[in-house]
């Protein structure tokens, strides 16, 4: 009975993995396939799509734009998210629930609607569309992620630590610098990486808010019309995917550093107590 259920679950899991990774595998296959048409049978092994990609100035420019937007918007979103998280977890003030709801709203509003709304707003304010406007849009959609990630870390550590610092003579600024920030640093780094990835991949908002120089997703979408450049796009997709995967894994790992401390303690406890007993007369 239990075995039957287990194998059913395992079956689902394998199906999911296949659906997820087969397209990625195919993408990789065609990025090294010596042919313009993306169809089997494969023609032969080549790396020239990768070489062409690196020589494509417009593509590199788009990559650069995306990197700039992602870097700027993620830094801003992390700063805002961390400040908000500290305020929300440690201070009492009126309208806290409303504040959280408002900050998390971008998670629920479809990007299409948010994109139109921002477009109208920037038009009304007479702001020229550029990488800046894209950056603002990306900062807004990254904020819920950074806020939630840093908040979970703030909730996880004891507020007594801040009191202890103050008790030892530290002002709030000193406490922030030597206690709070070091403790939430891994979470902030993880939040930054997530925000960076969100921005780097984002297409809908960017396509609404972009000025003359496109970000990478917008550029890629435009290139789909030209069949002979398509393999280059595939090659780029592979590169971007591997890089994002690396970033996400790094973010996950950083978030775990904070929680590992409590595990270590449990392991060390028993042995240390014994040692102590012997040395204390």
């Amino acid at each position, binding site marked *: 009975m239990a075995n039957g259920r287990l194998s059913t679950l395992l079956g689902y899991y394998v199906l999911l993995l296949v659906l997820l990774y087969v397209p990625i595998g195919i993408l990789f296959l065609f990025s090294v396939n010596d042919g313009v048409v993306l169809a089997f049978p494969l023609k032969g092994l080549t790396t020239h799509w990768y070489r062409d990609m690196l020589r494509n100035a417009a593509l590199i420019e788009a990559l650069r734009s995306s990197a700039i937007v992602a870097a700027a918007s993620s830094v801003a979103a992390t700063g805002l998210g961390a400040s908000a998280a500290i305020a929300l977890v440690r201070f009492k003030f009126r309208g806290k629930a409303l504040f959280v709801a408002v900050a998390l709203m971008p998670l629920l509003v479809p990007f299409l609607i948010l994109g139109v709304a921002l477009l109208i707003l920037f038009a009304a304010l007479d702001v020229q569309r550029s990488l800046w406007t894209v950056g603002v849009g990306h900062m807004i959609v990254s904020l819920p992620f950074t806020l939630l990630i840093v908040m979970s870390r703030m909730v996880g550590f004891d507020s007594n*630590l801040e009191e202890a610092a*103050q008790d030892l003579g530290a002002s709030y600024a000193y406490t922030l610098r*030597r206690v709070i920030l070091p403790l939430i640093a891994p979470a902030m780094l993880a939040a930054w990486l997530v925000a960076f990835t969100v921005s780097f991949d984002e297409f809908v908002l960017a396509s609404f808010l972009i000025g003359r120089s496109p970000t990478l997703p917008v550029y890629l979408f435009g290139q789909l019309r030209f069949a002979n450049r398509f393999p280059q796009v595939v090659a780029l997709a592979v590169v971007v995917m591997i890089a994002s995967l690396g970033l996400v894994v790094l973010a996950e790992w950083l978030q775990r550093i904070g929680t590992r401390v409590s595990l270590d303690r449990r392991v060390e406890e028993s042995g240390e107590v014994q040692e*102590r007993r012997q040395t204390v007369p």
Partner: protein
Amino acid sequence: MKIPAVELLNVVKRFAEYEAVREVSLQIGQGEFFSLLGPSGCGKTTTLRMIAGFEQPTTGTISLLGEDIRGQPPHRRNVNMVFQNYALFPHLTVFDNVAFGLQVKRIPRAETRRRVAEALSMIRLPGLEHRKPAQLSGGQQQRVALARALVNRPAVLLLDEPLGALDQKLRKEMQLELKRLQREVGITFIYVTHDQEEALTMSDRIAVMHQGRVLQVDGPRALYEHPATRFVADFIGVTNFLQGRLVSIADGTARVEVDGLGQVRAHLAEGIEAGQKVTLAIRPERMQLLSSNLPGGDNHAPGIVEDIVFVGNDTQYFVRLNNGPQVMVREQNETPLSEASMVSVGQTVGVRWSPDSTSLLPE
């Protein structure tokens, strides 16, 4: 008289609708080991946190060495606290934890190093400077928390149930250690605990708190021998209570008519007048079991043994006095078998106790 280390005058703390501390006035002397003892929710931790500066009194004043410290934030007060869960900085080494307070004050590096080493050897924990708190046992963390506070040489050290998280044996060790440390450094300790035994073991004086009020402030022995209220008598140690009415006062002893027992003599307390309803408190170990009811100079009553409980170093006899109240009599298990140890359940015995060991409490 010396200026008190800490003085609280009519301190009240109200949280919204709830009054956590009500009209507390205390004088804690310099170099004293002072305990705030009471059940959870009695206001002892709130009182401590007001001295530290984490809470502000709603009304009343708090002074430190004669100076009113109302409104002073925690980081300006010359007091340090040892937290219940230690609150060591997990990202800093033992050295940096202990040095934290000195670094805040920009003490020169060489002096910091010397004082940290001194503090660590004082708590008998040298050689662990480079460990992180997570790599220490509970007892070691406790010591680091102590060093971190003491290294600042505060006027007063506040301790909030610092031994609560340790196991029984280690806790006993640390109690003696804390007492030794306090004698060595001569700093005033204010110690919050709900463990009466802990308070009795370490303190010079104890304030027993209940529902936000201080019921009694006294030395451990006086508190044990002469509790002022029924709550104190009940909270500290085990006590037999007898109900009665004060009949007369003569030669410093009070005569109390106890329902079903006749007249019992008791140690006279102030402020109680003849005719008043009273409670008598007698410690179980101050009562003596006799194989028969022998009249004598002391209080005595016949009774029937209803239960006998052996608890290692002594035996507890539950005796119904004269078909009236039940009392517990505690006899030490000496060798060879004492007269009392022959007693069995159902047997008629006599119980005797001295008037000096009988505390008179207002009803």
